[in-house]
């Protein structure tokens, strides 16, 4: 539980976005939550709590730009409290909330009320995104100026594309004057239809309606063209195919103001991992073939993918227990993302903590106009302690989210977040 005492983190190794190497050091955080000293062999003030890191890694807090917290309106799936608890267990110290609550956040007043709820119920900072169109219905522009004045970090119809290119164009033209980031869920509904998984060999074998790759690729191309035409800033969510990524790369080379994100599940799972109609693997965009996954990992490393974002999308186990075709898309991700990235990549030497910090801490903060956080003297404490020898069991009992739905359920991931520091508060993770 958070309490205002100084804390000395001993025998840690500090990770940063700037260096592959970890810096062996102690870190002293005072009772106001400021990092006051960094270095080996620090002496603790008399009233300080000592935390032995045991050689564990101290990592700047992660920031996730794609989170559905479900409150207000769908508290049976998740609440702001359970969502922030899940984030802290995953080393995530800030998020952007999607506006697809009930009611959808499409006016300044609703942003205000969302911010009040966050202040009251969440343990971590959460930025509330606003809708592009009223009620996310894709028919009329939402109230941009009111939402801008309440500080929305981005506008998006969250899990829905704006079907009409003319309306999308006007939204971008209008958003440009407020310097608002337009965020797209890349999908062509007329192509994805009632699809449940990637269209191809696997969908044929399962006898499930498929979502063709072109339904995302055409949307990416369209949205980039409209952004180029209007000069709006564009962020593309959940890139899932090699060709889609190619389009983003071309646009960047042409100087377009476009960024994109990928999810951990699209980096580590393929359509082949879907077994026995397990709906925990049902995502939109769907899991793709191995060749796409390889291209995404390459793009994640070379920087053509800017941001890692988990698309935390809780649904109850009951909702996910219906047949594959009608089960909802998405799974919880906040508390598994860092352990999954460590287990699958960092531990195996594919890349280091520096890259993960760039993609999941620094870049996402910059994307929404925040300064990146670092473990440095004089900075506000915002980091977590990661034990590379520890284990993260992904089970119903251990998960903090209200909806223990995850493609990693039943796995024990190598590495564990032992606790998260946010200012003067220390949240140890059992």
């Amino acid at each position, binding site marked *: 539980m958070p309490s205002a005492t100084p804390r000395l983190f001993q025998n840690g190794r500090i990770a940063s976005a700037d260096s592959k190497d970890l810096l062996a050091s102690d870190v002293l955080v005072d009772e106001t939550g400021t990092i006051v000293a960094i270095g080996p062999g620090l002496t603790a003030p008399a009233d300080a709590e000592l935390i032995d890191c045991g050689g564990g890694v101290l990592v700047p807090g992660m920031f996730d730009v794609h989170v559905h917290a479900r409150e207000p309106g769908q508290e049976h799936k998740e609440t702001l409290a359970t969502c922030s608890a899940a984030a802290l267990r995953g080393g995530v110290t800030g998020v952007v909330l999607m506006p697809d609550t009930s009611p959808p956040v499409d006016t300044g007043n609703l942003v205000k009320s969302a911010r009040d709820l966050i202040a009251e119920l969440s343990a971590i900072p959460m930025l509330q995104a606003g809708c592009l169109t009223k009620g996310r219905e894709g028919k009329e522009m939402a109230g941009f100026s009111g939402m801008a004045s309440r500080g929305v970090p981005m506008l998006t119809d969250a899990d829905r594309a704006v079907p009409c290119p003319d309306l999308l164009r006007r939204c971008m033209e209008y958003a440009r004057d407020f310097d608002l980031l337009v965020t797209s869920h890349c999908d062509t509904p007329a192509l994805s239809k009632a699809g449940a998984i990637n269209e*191809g*060999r696997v969908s*044929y*074998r*399962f*006898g*499930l*309606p498929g979502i063709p790759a072109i339904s995302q690729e055409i949307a990416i191309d369209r949205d980039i063209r409209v952004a180029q035409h209007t000069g709006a800033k564009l962020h593309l969510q959940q890139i899932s195919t090699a060709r889609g990524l190619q389009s983003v790369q071309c646009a960047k080379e042409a100087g377009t103001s476009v960024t994109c994100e990928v999810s951990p599940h699209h980096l580590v799972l393929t359509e082949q991992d879907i077994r*026995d*109609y397990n709906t925990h693997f049902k995502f939109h965009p769907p899991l793709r073939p191995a060749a796409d996954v390889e291209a995404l990992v390459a793009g994640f490393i070379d920087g053509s993918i800017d941001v890692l974002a988990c698309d935390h999308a809780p649904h109850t186990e*009951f909702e996910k*227990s*219906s*047949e*594959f*075709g*009608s089960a909802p898309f998405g799974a919880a991700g906040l508390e598994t993302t860092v352990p999954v990235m460590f287990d699958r990549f960092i531990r195996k030497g594919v890349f280091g903590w520096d890259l993960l910090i760039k993609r999941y801490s620094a870049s996402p903060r910059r994307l929404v106009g925040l300064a990146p956080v670092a473990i440095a003297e004089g900075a506000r404490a915002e980091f977590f302690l990661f034990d590379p020898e520890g284990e993260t069991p992904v089970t119903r009992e251990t998960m903090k989210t209200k909806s223990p739905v995850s493609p990693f359920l039943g796995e024990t991931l190598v590495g564990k977040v032992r606790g998260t520091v946010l200012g003067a508060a220390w949240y140890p993770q059992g």
Partner: protein
Amino acid sequence: MRDLKPRKDLLDIEGLELPEIEYVLSNAVPFKQLFQRSVKKVPTLRGKTVLNLFYEPSTRTSSSFEVAANRMSADVTNFTVSSSSVVKGESLLDTIETLQAMRSDYIVIRHQAAGVPNIVAKHTGASVINAGDGYHAHPTQALLDAMTFREVCPDYQGRKMVIVGDVLHSRVARSTSTLFHKLGIEVGVLGPGTLIPSGRHEFIRRFRSWDEVFDWKPDAVYLLRVQLERQEGMFFPSIAEYHKMYGMNTERLVRMRQIGAYLMHPGPVNRGVEITDEAMRYERSLISTQVENGIAVRMAVLHWLKPETDTD
């Protein structure tokens, strides 16, 4: 024969081992011979209960299972749920719980959504037999097709069959082609490009015209039912054009006779669409044999599966 691993459910063809397939197909033969006797019943499943759970209307398959179960002396309950009466609030798991309370030994299930039999099987001790789920699988249809084909071609390995029509949306095509491939029978497909899942099953030969098909000299031609309600004008321009391009008509019947090919169809047929009235009377049509073999194969499947409700 009896060193097969006991199997609880029949959900699809993919998961079956060749000895299991042989076991079922060879057991179906004596069951079929029973049909010639005045007493067609065996006491094998006396005291056992079979629940026929149909979420999609299907008189043929449901009756076939009912007759099969009756001839095995099981008690049969038919439960037809018209999709409109499925209350939105009652989930699949709720339904399964209700079914559990009925303590059936076998559940025969047809559902419009792929994967439903898999979910039911996971939650019940009863043997689940998939009687067709969405576009996914229809394993007993595949087994009866194999039985029918092997009766007319006892040296079936290396023989050839062509499936004609909407392969993309057909659970029959999926299961039957998978089973025939396992048995070493070559499979080809003919149909409009919109309804053939191209490049997804390399072992299947794709034809673009009847001329190509007849040049290949298949031993059987398997016509699929055109799902008239499914087309929405998106997959081919009109029924008339489909009939002209892919239907079994008089001229094609002449070619069928020349190469001595058999004609199969899973039923019910759309006369005038995939098949003409004349073709229905084709002397090498196996359509009614398929229906008869369906009962024998389903008896063999009931005989083979081992429900976890068995305590003796």
